[in-house]
């Protein structure tokens, strides 16, 4: 952060007179330091504190194969999440049917992306996505374990998972170099959108905000416990969005990030 922005943001704009004072000091200080530097002698300036050793950042080249490997890892995370959800034995009726069917579709999608990666000369990513494990799977299942509505929270998680998948693939579209790869990725993304809509239908989400029933305005009672809700819609907007994916777990609203460059499988 620099001085100018400090002053502007603090509401006291830097006027010309003060700018010259600051500028004049800087020039004088530079002259003093230059004088101290001496001519040809190279004495080390003493330094307080620890010096840190730096390591060069690894080469990270974003390519089609990186995105396809990321897609494979994301699908493997989805397979694992469905496996765990189905293994809990809490999904019944349509939820159980959807869970089994969607997991099967994610298995097919993982194999599809593996083949695409191989076709481009890369090695398919055979493990789950580490960022999804850290940021979604682990905290979500901890919250579900502690929840009084485990079955409801599982459905919320699976609905949000499908949104993360669809929107992540949508975010890949301008990054992929060929139309064929964009079509391939969105063929799976489109299936995820259907999965999301179907999860929303059994969570009880109406189709879209405009179809919500009109309710009378409520009065907030002081001291009342606030009930957190995260609206769920089957077809929420005219255009698919790409942003944080909110969900409700153990009575709290949680936002899941889409996979970004820090979460890719390089």
């Amino acid at each position: 952060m620099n001085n100018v922005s400090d002053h502007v943001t603090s509401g006291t704009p830097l006027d010309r007179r003060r700018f010259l004072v600051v500028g004049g000091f800087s020039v004088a200080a530079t002259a003093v330091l230059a004088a101290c530097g001496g001519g040809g002698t190279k004495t080390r300036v003493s330094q307080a504190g620890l010096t840190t050793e730096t390591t060069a950042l690894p080469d990270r080249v974003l390519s089609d194969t990186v995105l396809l490997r990321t897609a494979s890892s994301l699908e493997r995370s989805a397979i694992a999440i469905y496996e765990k959800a189905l293994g809990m034995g809490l999904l019944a009726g349509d939820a159980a049917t959807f869970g089994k069917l969607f997991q099967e579709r994610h298995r097919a999608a993982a194999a599809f992306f593996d083949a695409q990666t191989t076709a481009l000369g890369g090695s398919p990513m055979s493990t789950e996505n580490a960022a999804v494990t850290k940021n979604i799977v682990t905290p979500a299942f901890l919250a579900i374990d502690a929840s009084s509505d485990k079955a409801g929270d599982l459905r919320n998680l699976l609905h949000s998972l499908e949104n993360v998948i669809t929107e992540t693939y949508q975010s890949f579209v301008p990054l992929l170099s060929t139309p064929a790869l964009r079509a391939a990725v969105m063929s799976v993304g489109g299936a995820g959108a259907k999965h999301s809509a179907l999860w929303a239908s059994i969570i009880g989400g109406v189709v879209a905000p405009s179809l919500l029933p009109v309710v009378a305005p409520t009065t907030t009672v002081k001291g009342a416990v606030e009930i957190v809700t995260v609206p769920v819609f089957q077809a929420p907007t005219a255009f698919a969005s790409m942003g944080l994916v909110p969900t409700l777990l153990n009575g709290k609203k949680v936002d899941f990030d889409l996979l970004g460059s820090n979460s890719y499988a390089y």
Partner: protein
Amino acid sequence: MQRENPVATTTTTAPPRQPDEADVAVLVFSQTLELALVAVYDAAITGGRLDPAHAALATLFRSHHLEHAQAIASAAGKSSKNVANKAIIRKFVAPVGAATDQNGVLLALFQAETSAAATYGQALGQLKATDSASTVASIHPVEQRHAAVLARAIGLNPADYLLPFDGDAKMALAPSSYAIEG
């Protein structure tokens, strides 16, 4: 020591952002598709077979298609025809008109949405410009959602309409078969 790189490195040229003539042709066709879907929903809404809840649903989806048409027109620029594709209207309005009950109407709408989604899947495989592809990629999942909502309303078996990703490609509407008239 050189680490093994699991990612193949390729020399690539950045794809264009702006549509060329071939891209514009895809966008122009897509806009006529969206306006045709608006007309198909108009037929469903005014046909008298839908109960108020499903008429409201149809009205909502109609509005989405109108917004899609506007967005695609913006992407296609001056080349936009701003007309509904009559051949596509004929294909889907006929079963809407022939439906004897609400489910029949919803089934015709489901088939129209499935075809639209498949058409956008094909379009994504043709569009070279990233801006145009991004626009289509924001519409494609919405058509899929519409199809899923309608399938659920009809009570179709999920295994029949949740085909493995490209399973509904044969439903795509080819511009050569649905030429823009007028």
